[in-house]
C-alpha cells in the first residue's frame, strides 16, 4: 500500500468530504444506538430536533457554540503557527478569574465600557499566561505541549483554592463559588427569554477578524510562514520570535475570552465547573475546521448541536448522553481521515 499526493482536488470534494465524514461517523454511532436498543433514525431525529427544532433549542445550541468558537479560534491560530497550545482550558479560567477579580465590584463602569474592559483585560491575562510556556519553548526548548497541558491543572487548583478560600461568596450558602459579577458586566441577551447573549456576536466578529488577519495582513502572513516552515522563515529574515510571541498573545487571549464570555454571559459567577472542557473541545473544533477561522464557526456549531441534541435525545429515549462524546470523537477521526484522503490517494500494489 502506498500513498500518492493528488495533483488537484475539486472544490466540491474539499467541502463534500468532511460532510460525508460526519455522515459516516453518524453511521458508526448508529451501531451503538442499535445496541442500546433504540432506533437510530428516531434517535438522530430527536437529536436534531433537540438542537435545532425550536427557537429555544437553537438559542441553546448557539449559546453552547459561543465559547467553543473562542477556544476553537485559540487553537486554530496557535496550531497554524505550530505553537501547540493545549492549555486552552487553563487560559479559559485565567480569563474567567480576571473578569471575576475586576468585575465583582472592584471596578464599576457603565455596561458599554465595562464589557469591553473585562474582555480586554481577560484576553491580556490569558495571552500573558501563555507567554510563560512560550518563553520556555523559545528560550529553553521546553516542549509546550507538556507545559501548556500541565498548567491547566495548576490553574484549576488555583481556582479551586480561590472559590473555597478568599473568593468564596458568603451569600452562596456554602457552595464553592465566587461572588457574581456586577450587572453592568453581564452580557445583554440577544433573544428575549433565551440564554443567547452578546458573546455570540463577539465570537463571530473574532472569527471574521482572525480570518481577515491571517489572509491579508503582514502578521497573518508571518504566522502562516513560521508555521509552515520555521527554517525557511528564519532564513528569509522574518521576525520569527516576535511572530511566536504575537501568536501566543492572540491564542491565549482568545481562549481567555471564552472564559469571560461564559462567566459574564451564562453563569454570572466563577465555579469549578464553569467549563465542561471547553478548552480541550476547542482543539477538536479547530482540527475539524482544518484550522480555518471561518470553519471554526461551523465546527463549533456542529459540536454544540451534537451535545445539546444528545441531552434532549437521552431524556426522550433512554440512551446515555455519552453518545455525544462518542459522536464527536468518531467524527473527528473520520473528518481527519477524509481530509487526508482528499490530499492523498491510496494505491494498492
Amino acid at each position, binding site marked *: 500500500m502506498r500513498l500518492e499526493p493528488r*495533483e488537484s482536488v475539486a472544490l466540491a470534494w474539499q467541502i463534500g468530504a468532511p460532510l460525508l465524514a460526519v455522515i459516516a461517523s453518524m453511521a458508526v454511532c448508529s451501531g451503538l444506538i442499535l445496541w442500546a436498543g433504540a432506533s437510530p433514525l428516531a434517535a438522530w431525529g430527536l437529536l436534531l430536533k433537540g438542537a435545532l427544532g425550536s427557537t429555544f433549542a437553537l438559542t441553546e445550541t448557539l449559546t453552547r457554540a459561543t465559547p467553543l468558537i473562542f477556544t476553537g479560534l485559540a487553537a486554530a491560530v496557535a496550531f497554524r503557527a505550530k505553537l501547540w497550545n493545549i492549555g486552552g482550558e487553563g487560559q479559559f479560567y485565567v480569563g474567567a478569574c480576571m473578569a471575576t477579580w475586576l468585575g465583582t465590584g472592584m471596578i464599576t463602569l457603565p455596561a458599554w465600557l465595562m464589557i469591553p474592559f473585562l474582555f480586554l483585560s481577560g484576553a491580556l491575562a490569558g495571552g500573558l499566561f501563555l507567554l510563560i510556556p512560550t518563553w520556555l519553548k523559545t528560550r529553553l526548548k521546553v516542549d509546550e505541549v507538556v507545559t501548556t497541558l500541565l498548567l491547566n491543572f495548576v490553574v484549576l487548583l488555583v481556582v479551586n483554592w480561590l472559590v473555597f478560600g478568599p473568593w468564596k461568596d458568603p451569600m452562596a450558602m456554602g457552595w464553592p463559588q465566587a461572588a457574581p459579577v456586577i450587572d453592568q458586566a453581564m452580557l445583554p441577551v440577544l433573544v428575549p427569554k433565551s440564554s443567547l447573549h452578546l458573546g455570540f456576536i463577539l465570537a463571530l466578529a473574532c472569527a471574521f477578524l482572525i480570518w481577515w488577519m491571517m489572509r491579508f*495582513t*503582514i502578521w497573518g*502572513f508571518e504566522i502562516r510562514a513560521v508555521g509552515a516552515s520555521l527554517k*525557511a522563515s528564519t*532564513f528569509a529574515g522574518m521576525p520569527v520570535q516576535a511572530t511566536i510571541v504575537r501568536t501566543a498573545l492572540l491564542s491565549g487571549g482568545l481562549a481567555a475570552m471564552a472564559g469571560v464570555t461564559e462567566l459574564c454571559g451564562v453563569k454570572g459567577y466563577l465555579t469549578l465547573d464553569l467549563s465542561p472542557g471547553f478548552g480541550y473541545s476547542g482543539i477538536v473544533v479547530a482540527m475539524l475546521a482544518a484550522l480555518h477561522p471561518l470553519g471554526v464557526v461551523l465546527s463549533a456549531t456542529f459540536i454544540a448541536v451534537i451535545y445539546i441534541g444528545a441531552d434532549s435525545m437521552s431524556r426522550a429515549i433512554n440512551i446515555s448522553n455519552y453518545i455525544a462524546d462518542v459522536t464527536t470523537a468518531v467524527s473527528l477521526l473520520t473528518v481527519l481521515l477524509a481530509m487526508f484522503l482528499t490530499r492523498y490517494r491510496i494505491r494498492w500494489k
Partner: protein
Amino acid sequence: MSITPLLRLSGITKTFGPLKANDDISLTLAQGEMLALLGENGAGKTTLMSILFGHYVADDGSVEVLGRPLPPGSPRAALAAGIGMVHQHFTLADNMTVLENIMLGTEPLWAFRRGSARARAKLGSLMDRFRLRVDPGAKVRALSVGERQRVEILKVLYRDARILILDEPTAVLTPQESDHLFATLRELVNQGVAVIFITHKLREVMAASDRCVVLRHGRVVLEAATKKTSAEELARAMVGASIPQATRVTLAPGEEVLFLDRVRADAPDRGPGLRELRLSVRAHEILGIAGVSGNGQALLADLLSGLVAPTGGSVVLRGQTVSRLTPAAMIRAGVGRVPDDRTGTGLVADMTVMENLSTEIYRLPGFSKRGMLNFKALASRAAQLMDVFDIRCAGPNAPVRKLSGGNMQKLILARVLSQGPHLILANQPTWGLDVGATAAVHQHLLDAARRGAGIVLISEDLDELFELSDRIQVMYQGRLSAPENTATVDRAKLGLMMSGQNVDTRGAA
C-alpha cells in the same frame, strides 16, 4: 565474452500515472563489462535500477540473469541472483565496525554465536583479491567517505554479487578518490564482475566505461561502445538538443564587496568549525569554494546567510564591518543568499509561488502599508519575475511543493536577483538539477556578476567551479587555502588540497 549475457533486460515498461518512467527499455550486460547508464534527472535511470533490484514491479518486460528469469518485485531474489547495489546515500550503521556492517543481514536470526571468525577470513580474502583495503575492526564513524564507499562495495561482494550497480558513486568523492574508485571497479571487472554505474558526469563515462547507454524520457536514445562515441554526442543524446553554453564575459574586478578577516565559528554539531578564514570577493568576481562536503562549507554558508554568528574575526561588507549577523541584516546589506537545501531552507514548500517570491520583501514600503499586504503589488511583481526567470508552474498561486527542482531554484534566484544584491552566496546552486536548468542557473549567476555583484560559489562539483569561478579556494577541515587562479591551477593540485594535502593554512586573501 560469453554468448548468454550475464544480465538481460527486455522491454521494461513502467508507468506512474500519466508518466512513462520506463518505455520499452532493453539492455544487456556481459560478464566483465563496465556499463555507464546516463541520463538527466527524471530520465528513468533510478526507476530502471529499482525494477532490476526488485523494489518496483515493471508493468511489462522481463529481467534475466544468465538466461534465467528473475521473479519480479523481490529484492531477495535479486540478491540471490548476485545483483548488488551501492546507493548514493550510504546505508551503514555509524556506531558499528566495518566487519559488523558487512555481516549485518547475512547472519541467521537465531544463531547462538556470530560466525565472526569465518566472516573475517572471507572478508580478508575478498580484500586481497580485489585490493580493497579497509580495517575490518574500525568503526564506520571514523572512516572517510571514500573508505565508507569501499565498505559498501565490500558488503555487496561479501554477498557474492556478480553484478554491481552504483548510483552516482562519485557525487561525494574527491577527484583522487574517484580515480581510486574507478581503478577498483576496473579490477572487479577484470575478475569477472559486471558493473553498471549511474552518472551524469560525462568525463567519468569517457574515462572509465566500456559501453554506455543514454536514457531520455524513459527510452534508450543511444547505446554505444565508449570508444566509438564522444562526450559531445553523449551530451546531445542526454538533453535532446545541443547544450546551451553559458556565455561568459570577464570584467575587471571592482570594489571589494566581502572581506572575511580571520573569521572563526563553532559548528552546532561535532563537525569542524571555521578556523581563521580569510577571503575577499570583489564586484564582478566569482570566487569558488571547493572541497569535499562536510569540511565546513555548510557553516560558511550559514555564516554568510546570517544564520550563524562568528565567534571571532570580522565580516566586512563593502567596507562596513557587520556587527550583528542576522538573516534580515544580511538582506538589508545587499547579500543575496541561495541555500543548498531548496525545499527546507530556501522555500516554504506549502506556500504559493507568489508568497515565496515575497518572503524577503513584503515588509518594504510599496508591498505593505500599515500592516496590510499589498496583494496587487506583490502579484504583479510575482508575475513579472515568473516571466523574466521563466519559472514554469500552474500560476502564482500554485504551491511551491509542486514545482520541479529547476523551477524552485529559478524562484530562489528570482527572489535574490530581483533585489539587486552586491554579494551573492550560492551554495551548491545546481545540485540535483538537470542540464538545462543548470545552464540557466549558471547564466543567471554570470549575468549577476557582469552587473556588478561579487559571488561566493560553494560547490562540490569541480567542473562547475572551473566553468564559473575566477579564483578558487579549497576548504578542508574548516580552513581555507590561499586562492588559486582558475586559469592557471590544475585539477590534480586541487584534488590533493581537497584531501588535506599541501594546503597553505596561512590563507592569504
